[in-house]
Structures are given as C-alpha cells and as structure tokens.
C-alpha cells in the first residue's frame, strides 16, 4: 500500500466515527420533556461534516493524481468540524450536560486528529509529486 494512502484511511475511519457517533454514542441528549436544544442541531451539522470528510477520504484513495488537493480540502473541512460544537453552534450551558461533557471533547479530538492526518497526507503527497 502506498504511504500516501494511509492518512486517507485514517481520515475515513475518523470521519465515520464522527458521523455515526454524532447520532448515537457521542450524540447530544434528548431533554426529559422530549424536546431538544441547539446541541441537537450541532450534531446534525457534525453528521454532514463527517460525511463530507468521509467522501473526501474515499476520493483521495481512488483519485491518485488529485490526492494532494483532496488532502488540502480536508484541512478546512476538519477545521469547520472542530469549530462547530460550541463555537459555531451553541451547546447547552451546564458543563454536566452530555453535549458538553462528551460530544464536544470527543468531536474536538476526532476532528483535530483528522486535521493532523490530512496535513501529513498533504505533505506526503506533495513530496511524492516532486
């Protein structure tokens, strides 16, 4: 397997965890009265961002010549995911709420790792092109 493929595989795995996790084991809670807050919509946005990252990772695996550019596109996509819970879309205010104690830290770590992997992938791909 080519070395430049490894970061794409890592991003694919991370983005799948993000997408599935945001709606299941890492997702926000539903309030006691059945309603949901802004954190619910933050998780919906994260689902979209995870799917986008996954699509970019699959394309990077398939399209060898465009790989460096696709890795470059993954960097702002990961940054967007990093900023979504809390900064772009508000979460619950109490630190003991599920979205604050689980969703946000988990998504921050996952998107930060994806960003790092994308950066490494871009550097490796660029070196390969030279």
């Amino acid at each position, binding site marked *: 397997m080519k070395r430049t493929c490894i970061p794409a595989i890592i991003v694919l795995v991370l983005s799948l965890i993000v997408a599935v996790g945001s709606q299941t084991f890492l997702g926000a809670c539903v309030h006691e009265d059945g309603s949901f*807050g802004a954190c619910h919509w933050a998780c919906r946005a994260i689902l979209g961002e995870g799917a986008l990252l996954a699509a970019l990772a699959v394309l990077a695996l398939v399209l060898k010549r465009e790989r460096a550019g696709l890795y470059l596109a993954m960097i702002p996509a990961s940054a967007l995911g990093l900023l979504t819970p809390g900064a772009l879309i508000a979460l*619950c*205010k*109490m*630190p*003991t709420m599920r979205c604050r104690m689980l969703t946000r830290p988990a998504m921050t770590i996952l998107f930060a790792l994806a960003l790092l992997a994308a950066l490494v992938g871009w550097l490796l791909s660029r070196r390969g092109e030279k």
Partner: protein
Amino acid sequence: MGRAHLPVKNLLRKPGRTAALVLLTALLAASVFGGSVVVGSLRRGLESLEARLGADIIVMPAEAESKVSFKNLLLQGTTGAFYMDASVLDAVRGAQGVEIAAPQTFLASLKADCCAIKVQIIGIDPGADFTVKPWIEESYSRGLGDMEVAVGCKVTAGVGETLKIYEQYTHVVAKLAETGTGLDTAVYCNMDTMKKLLAAAEAKGVTHRLTSGSDVISAVYVKVKDGADPAQVNNWLNGHIRKVTAVRARSMFTDVSDSLSGIARAARVLIGAVWALALVILLVAFAMMIRERRREFAVLRLLGVSRRGLRDEILAETALCGLAGALIGVGVAALGVFPFTTLIETQIGLPYLTPAPGTLLTLAGGTVLATLAVGLLAGAWAAARLSRTDPGATLREGA
C-alpha cells in the same frame, strides 16, 4: 556516516518493527499515567469533600432514607428535597455535647434557565453555618443578602447575572471554587430567600409534604464540643428526637473511602498486569529482534565494533523507542482523561478533582522515566544475551 546516527537509521529502516515497539511502550505509559491521574483525582476529590464538610453529625428526616439519597445529593449533585419541622433545630441545639448546630434547607428547581435539568438549591443560615459559609467566603465575603445566591462552579450563571428559579429572580453574587462533588452543581442562598423560593414552589404545585404550616428545614449539621463523644451524641439524637435520623459524617466518608480504595486497588492490579504483560512482550520482542538481526550485529563486531559498542547501540535504539512511546502514551492518556473529566466524575459517582498542574507534571515525568527504565531493562537483557554469542560462528551457521 558516523556510528552516532546508526540507531536512528536502524529504527527508520524498519518502520513496522519500530512502530510495534513504540506502540507497546506507549500502552505502558498510557496505562500508568491515565490510571494515576484518575486515582489521584479521586483522592483529591475525597479530601476536598472532607474539607468542605466539617460536620461531625448530620441530622435529617427519617424519610430521607438515611444516608442514601443524602450521599447522592452531596457526591453526585442529585436533586432532592426532604423536610422536617424547624423545631428539630432547637431540639438538636439542646442536646448535650452539641457545640454548633446549623440548619440547611433543600429545594430542587423545576428547570434551570439554560437546560432541561434540575438544579439543587440549598438554603443556609449565615449566622450559624460552619460548613458552606467558609467556602462561600473564599469567593464572596459580604454575606448572602436577600434574593442573592452563590452558585457552584458547574452552574452556568456567572457573577452579576440573574437566575430565575420558580419565577423568582435571584442575583448571582459569587461563583464558588471547584470541589469535585455534587456541591459544584448547587445554588446557595440564605434562609429568607429560601422561604420565598419555597413559597414560590408551593404556588407552582411543588409541596413540602409538611402540613404543620411552620418553617421547614432539610438537615442540621452538628459540630460536637471538644471532649464530647460524637457516637454518644449521635445515639442521643437518634433516641430522643422523633422522626429524624442522625448520621455520623465519618461513616459517610468511610463508605466513600471504601469505594475509593476498591477502585484504587483495581486500578493498581490492572496497571500491574499491563506492566507485567508489557515487560514480557518487550523482552520477547527484543529477543526476537536480536535473533533476526544477529548477522547484522556479527558483521558490526567483525568490522571492529566492541561488545560495549554493540550494547550501546541496542540501548540507544531502546531508549529512542522508549522515549517516543512514553511521550505518545502520556499524550494519549491526557487526551483520554482531561477533556472527559466531567464525564468520568458523573460515571464514577464519587468526588473527583483533577490534581494540581505541578502534581500532573510530576506524574507525567515519573511515567516517562519509569517507561524508559523498563525499555532499557529489556534492551540490556537482550544486549547481554547477544554479547555471549560468537560473531564468527553466527556468520558461518547463517551462510
């Protein structure tokens, strides 16, 4: 190329083998650092709770199911409301051996402004209180006035903001220091404010389940006189005051301390097992690595590298792998523990307060050194085995 770069070149030449060794040492470091931080946080949490509750005895209504719901209220911030007639306070104060008796009244809000969760409201008597008041005074020394509240560090409202409880507007005057317990999610007010909130709660249909119509309190915190036996005072209170339960605070701490000891013991056993396993795997891995590379080492020996030089070469490789693994392991454990502090605290259900930065740095440094030492031990053992083989024979048998 000088021999100084040989260990780095060797490690980079076989990335799979290097990655496996680094991963193994990272596992070691992560288990030690992560486990130590969690156990350290639990210990600090218990110390913090003991410091906050200086009471010898806590008197509460018999309906409070003695310690169970009360313990949850303190440790996990579970909302609860149980009441007894305020005349219990006078009865407690009249008991022999009681130095100070301070009342507290609890009320669970229906819903905080921000989220769909209830917040515990605790009314204190600033004149008599000796448990919460010193803690509040660390952040606010003027004393809680009418409709003024102090909030735990995990309550969203900040100083200067208004908190609406049962349609009553209260003014936040202080945000309290973290304790790692359920006290962090509570709101504190004086008894006059509490009476208004209780009346507002009644208006909303939340009853106190008391029909006497007189003032109500939820608990009395008792400090016994010097020389008095807390056990005797506790027995007297249980025997002479009807419909209440007196619980010694120490017994509550002992329960928590027992749970903590159990967790600490399990963590120690787990960490020990991981270390023993990792040490065995490292020894086997190094033995296999040396066996695989014996021709390479034999050539080096025939080229004039001394036994000592060869040992240094192996130890340098081990040290590099160990250092990288230890740093990665500590980093991974930090990522797995620190962002999820609140989650761990909620799941464990015990007081949890992260150690001070200095302690954390010491723990991290100690973990790196210990991991490095184990790696070097395995490397030294492999090097000692290698030094006993004859390079000429090795090359001949491999030809």
